[in-house]
């Protein structure tokens, strides 16, 4: 009698501890579903189509990841502030949500290597003759007031000592002014620039090059102690670039020159 109780508790302990040892990567594969946190009001990274199904770069990226794992993807819509809470409360397995890899966030969640980069792009009126960032010297330039790129651009205009900087209320106002010729050029996030040029609402403007401002690198994230999964995700990002899938998705959703995901002079 005593022996059977002992044997049962031993067995129970073994079962329980062996369950505790299965990590998140195993859990995802055995559950057959990969739940991704995706922001769906942030085109072209995430939005909804006419039938309200999730679409976008991040959605495709999650589907690719699920395919690599041999499971089905489940897109869980999370607004920007809900991305990390959704992971912490176990509603999602991985965040594929254009999340900047800040050190502050890395205290809470485990960040992978960058899977996407938001570069600053120069968009110019075709008549202005601006062909690169340097050509903006002495021209009339503008951006959405208060944004990171507006502050950087205003400082640059002051440093050049020539030309004029004009702030605008909204991003749409900037592109309208650019299209009407009130502005010669502007600096904005590459995704925003490409999306606005693509709409066709602003004739006579084109994305002409990159601006040498800080690049916003974004990473996938999961629980910080899940090294096995983070390791897998890092390799997955590497493979996406290596196989050309990253460039393909970039061309599909954003367009233009594909941003590099590595930083010169340092590992990771």
């Amino acid at each position, binding site marked *: 009698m005593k022996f059977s109780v002992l044997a049962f508790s031993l067995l129970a302990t073994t079962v329980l501890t062996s369950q505790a040892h299965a990590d998140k990567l195993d859990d995802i594969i055995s559950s057959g579903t990969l739940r991704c946190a995706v922001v*769906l009001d942030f085109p072209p990274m995430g939005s909804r189509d006419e039938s*309200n199904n999730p679409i976008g770069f991040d959605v495709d990226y999650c589907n690719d990841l699920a395919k690599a794992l041999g499971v089905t993807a489940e897109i869980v*819509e*999370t607004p920007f502030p*809900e991305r990390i809470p959704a992971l912490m*409360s*176990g509603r999602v397995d991985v965040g594929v949500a254009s999340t900047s890899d800040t050190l502050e966030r890395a205290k809470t969640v485990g960040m992978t290597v960058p899977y996407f980069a938001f570069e600053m792009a120069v968009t110019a009126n075709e008549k202005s003759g601006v062909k690169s960032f340097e050509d903006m010297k002495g021209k009339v330039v503008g951006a959405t007031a208060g944004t990171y790129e507006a502050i950087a651009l205003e400082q640059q205009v002051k440093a050049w000592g020539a030309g004029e900087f004009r702030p605008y209320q909204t991003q749409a106002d900037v592109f309208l002014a650019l299209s009407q010729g009130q502005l010669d050029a502007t600096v904005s996030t590459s995704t925003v620039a490409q999306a606005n040029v693509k709409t066709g609402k602003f004739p006579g403007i084109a994305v002409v090059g990159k601006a040498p401002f800080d690049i916003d690198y974004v990473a996938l994230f999961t629980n910080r102690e899940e090294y096995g999964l983070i390791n897998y995700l890092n390799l997955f990002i590497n493979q996406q670039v290596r196989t050309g899938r990253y460039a393909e998705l970039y061309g599909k959703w954003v367009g233009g020159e594909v941003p590099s995901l590595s930083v010169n002079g340092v590992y990771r």
Partner: protein
Amino acid sequence: MFDTTLTWNDLAFLAQGAAMTLAVTAVSVTAGTVLGIIFGVLRVQLGAVWAAPLTFVLDVFRSVPLLIQLVLGNAIQAIAKLGWAPFTTSCVVLSLYTAAYCSEIIRGGIEAVPATTRRAARSLGMTWWQDMRYIVAPLATRVSLPAWIGLTLGVMKDSALVLWLGLIELLRASQILVTRLQEPLFILLICGVIYFVISFPIARFGGYLEKRWSPND
């Protein structure tokens, strides 16, 4: 006003949201009412002193805002590694919230049955169970019904808060459409109409029952 980009697809999407609202409400009100009856009867039977701990817990559920209960409930299930889906968590929290209000309604209903009537029943040799079943239940139900219908309608509207846990119910579905189509007034108007269409039959059904059960005097 009717120059809209809203399609039949989007209306179907809203209908799916409404179905989710109905599902959450149905589960929560059913479970909440069963629990509410148990708690309500217990509170009357135990008396104010012995039921104090139960009353206190139920008061907590009645006084803490539902949104906070949902967020905390979700956090607790995550910490306890229960692995509940958002639907389960929402239903559990909403059921307890409903039960807290319902127990109060049931208690009020039972206490509205005159003590003399109940004593008369027991003097006739009825057991406690028979007294509850044949004397208290019919009278208390009549008293409690209007408040219970009000609670059901309230829970249906409060269930919109489960969107916080990621469930796409009616309000969240409208928000998604507003984000995509940028027609907030029109879409919220439709959302309001759908809420009305769901609620109205319940309110009328309550009115009908009240009329049918009213004493013939």
